[in-house]
């Protein structure tokens, strides 16, 4: 099996730049999620690998060989599309078998049966795409992408157009299914949860640039920038503007008028002009007890959200934070005065100008 490697790939359409100096390597058997907001260039990146667009700069290698000049049919790539892109005039069976037939593979019927059993679509093999449910279409498209044992597998937001229940099911099934193939898998998604559930590593793409490539836990815990921190987490991270100062080897910052001690482990000592302080709503504790590092606040609203409640808090200076906590952990109601704390290690500091996390290692290129 072969490694997929992007080397400083660049692409622009007119004045719009869709990929800038993108370098990324995916090992055989590895699943890398390309995650980013819509319009960040995820799909364009995938389509360059598949051969629908030609990169303006850089190179794309599969197993050490450049594929940039090869037509799509010779690249050895399997792809599942967001809109399924099934052949409407062929049965599900013919859809799945099309690749095998084109390559003159033997024992097509047995392979199709095996693959469809794996994806639980055996009973609809004779149906045309329009007679299939969205879930079945999606599984047919996956089967079609997987069956040829491609060296590189590209999945373009394959769960976008299926309903929520099926999406959960597929999030559980997909990793093992994809690992069977031992292909290098690039998985495009706009849903950070899906990226975290499926991928070994996540490549965060913002405005055509890879901002961070790391394991899911690492991206969540140590986002490379404010933008990455905002994209991961629902409700999204609380941000306050602070000007921290060093005191006795500790970093102290005023949040809404209260002095808070921040964890200084990977924060360089010395005063900073202005920073963004980020605290995830999950790390925010709401209590009635005052104490050191407790910020007075008022509960503005409580939104019950299945297993947790999201609490909108307003500080004395008018700024607002969100806290996400188990309903039983909250002993106060709306319009009550409370105190807000968070653990020093939960605090993330970002440079105000660049948005980069302070203390973050320099941006990595090819991981």
């Amino acid at each position: 099996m072969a490694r997929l490697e992007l080397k400083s790939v660049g692409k622009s359409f007119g004045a719009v730049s869709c990929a800038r100096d993108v370098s990324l390597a995916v090992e055989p058997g590895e699943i890398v999620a390309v995650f980013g907001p819509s319009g960040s260039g995820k799909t364009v990146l995938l389509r360059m690998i598949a051969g629908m667009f030609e990169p303006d700069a850089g190179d794309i290698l599969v197993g050490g060989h450049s594929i940039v000049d090869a037509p799509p049919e010779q690249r050895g790539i399997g792809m599942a599309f967001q809109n399924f892109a099934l052949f409407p005039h062929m049965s599900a069976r013919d859809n799945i078998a099309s690749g095998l037939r084109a390559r003159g593979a033997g024992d097509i019927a047995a392979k199709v049966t095996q693959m469809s059993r794996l994806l639980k679509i055996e009973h609809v093999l004779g149906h045309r795409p329009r007679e299939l449910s969205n879930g079945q279409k999606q599984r047919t498209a996956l089967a079609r992408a997987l069956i040829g044992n491609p060296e590189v597998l590209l999945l373009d937001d394959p769960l976008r157009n299926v309903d929520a229940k099926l999406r959960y099911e597929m999030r559980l099934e997909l990793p093992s299914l994809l690992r069977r193939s031992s292909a290098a898998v690039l998985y495009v998604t706009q849903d950070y949860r899906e990226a975290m559930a499926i991928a070994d590593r996540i490549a965060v793409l913002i405005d055509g640039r890879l901002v961070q490539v790391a394991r899911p836990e690492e991206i969540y815990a140590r986002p490379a920038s404010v933008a990455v921190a905002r994209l991961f987490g629902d409700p999204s991270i609380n941000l306050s503007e602070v000007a921290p100062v060093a005191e006795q080897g500790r970093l102290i910052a005023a949040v809404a008028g209260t002095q808070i001690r921040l964890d200084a482990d990977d924060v360089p000592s010395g005063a900073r002009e202005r920073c963004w302080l980020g605290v995830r709503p999950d790390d925010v504790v709401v209590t009635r007890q005052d104490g050191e590092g407790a910020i007075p606040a008022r509960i503005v609203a409580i939104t019950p959200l299945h297993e947790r409640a999201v609490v909108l808090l307003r500080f004395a200076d008018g700024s607002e934070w969100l806290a996400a906590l188990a309903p039983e952990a909250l002993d106060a109601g709306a319009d009550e005065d409370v105190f807000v704390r968070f653990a020093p290690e939960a605090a993330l500091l970002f440079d105000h100008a660049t948005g980069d996390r302070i203390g973050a290692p320099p941006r990595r290129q090819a991981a």
Partner: protein
Amino acid sequence: MDHSSLAGRIFRGIALSLVLVFFMFPIVWILLMSFQTNEQILRIPPRILFEPTLANYEALISGQLRTAAGNLQIEFMRNLMNSFVLSSASVILALLLGVPAAYAFARFKFKLGETIAFTLLSFRFAPPLLVLLPLSLYYQQLGLNDTYFGIVWVYQLIALPLILWIVRGYFEDISPDIEHAYRLAGHSWREAFTRIAVPLAGPGIAAAGLLSFIFCWNNFVFALILASADKQPVTVGALAFVTASGIQYGQIAAAIVLSVTPTLLLALYAQRYLVEGLSLGAVKG
């Protein structure tokens, strides 16, 4: 539709009948005329009941037109055959040229693409008579006057833009991802075109082909100028019925019946595709 009241259904029935009579009456009248002699047709008042005669059809098929001024040779069957050959050849040629061109216009952005597509469409705006004079001069120079090929070529002005523009819309409606998926499965672009794009645009291609066949069949002025008697289609051949001894209404009617029949049968057969095809392209967002 099912839950309408009785009055509503009766009203709808009457309205439909009126529309049907309005559109069908001329055709029915022509059909009746084709079984009457000239004297019967010109009788005032006209009669619905008459003694039918097959003389008109006999005259057309045998090519002998008997008039008061004597016997006249007419080439109606030959004209009919010419119409058939010219229209079919034109549509086949236009499909061979137009379908790949429509695909190119739908799938690729290239320099002057829109301009070329619009220029091709603009051939349909120009009054044919305007084009005919220079065209006939060119044709005389090139030796294309009075050849089947020359007429088929000039019929491309009718058929090609029609096919290009209708079929282009169909290709644009097919998600390019379907073709991408087919190519990634290991097929060349040529296979993606012939096995994915063309079959999926099938109803549109059929509708466009049928429409251009009808337009070619009904064309009069190109063939009138550019073809001599032995290559003329029925539309021009019908002029022969205006004879020195008067207009042969009976034979004209029979000729119309015979010349309308092929396109009518074709349209009836392809009606399903035609309606589906023409509406699909327009409605799908």
